[in-house]
């Protein structure tokens, strides 16, 4: 197995684990954990193709990862702020309880 194939396999499994966390967890913060895992899987792909692909003097892969990390940090900050605000009203981070718009 080549290093590129190993990294792509790793990122595929990591992405699936993140998806599993998003679909099975009920705590909103732990769903964010799953989203972070999925974002990291995508970042591993960028670095893998930059490192083991054709030579790239423009550093496209690392640049993508750099901006992706910045966006992910912003997403985590806003997501957690929203979750904290919801917690102040409902006293819970369980998404099953947030059904006040349920018809």
């Amino acid at each position, binding site marked *: 197995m080549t290093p*590129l194939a190993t990294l792509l396999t790793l990122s595929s499994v990591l992405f699936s684990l993140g998806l599993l966390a998003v679909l099975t967890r009920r705590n909103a913060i732990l769903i964010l954990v799953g989203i972070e*895992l999925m974002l990291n899987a995508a970042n591993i792909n960028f670095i893998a193709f930059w490192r083991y692909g054709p030579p790239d003097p423009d550093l496209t892969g690392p640049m993508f990862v750099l901006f992706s990390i910045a966006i992910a940090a912003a997403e985590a900050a806003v997501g957690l*702020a929203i979750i904290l605000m919801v917690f102040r009203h409902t006293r819970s981070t369980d998404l099953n309880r947030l059904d006040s718009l349920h018809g």
Partner: protein
Amino acid sequence: MLPLLILSPLILLAALGAVWKARPVHAALLLALTLALIALLYLAIGAYFIGLVQFMVYVGAVAILIVFSLLITRPGDEAEEISRRPSSLLTGLICTVPVLAVLFISLIRANPPEPAASDAPSATLQQFGEKLFTTHAPVVITVGVLLTAVLIGAALFARGVQGISSSEPFESGKSLPP
């Protein structure tokens, strides 16, 4: 190749723990471990700058932010989480296994070639700086504006929006007592 073969199973084990652990604080700490191992992976394959950024931003900020959020919120009932696990796990697996299958099939069909060069491509800090502030300058400015907006928005959210009393629960009657 050897560090890759050592780190990959460790990353997957830590990620599996983060997904599986019923206690939220354990899951968050395992996420921090996963992110730290991914940073080590970047360092091992020659992406030094990205590895350090991953350490500082993800392990130093995002993971700690998640742990602190768990500490100031009340985690759910673990026994209830475990009792509901079989049904939610079935649903999750029904959705996840096809995704993983598609990813693996495309990976096998693409058949990634053997890398031409064994050395890591050169990526010095000077190159990063030049690319960031010449070719990608508009993106840097946009990300700066975005992060400022996020800072202000998160501070406003955390303080509480005007007009809604933070001490009053929702009227649905399903909120837990404080």
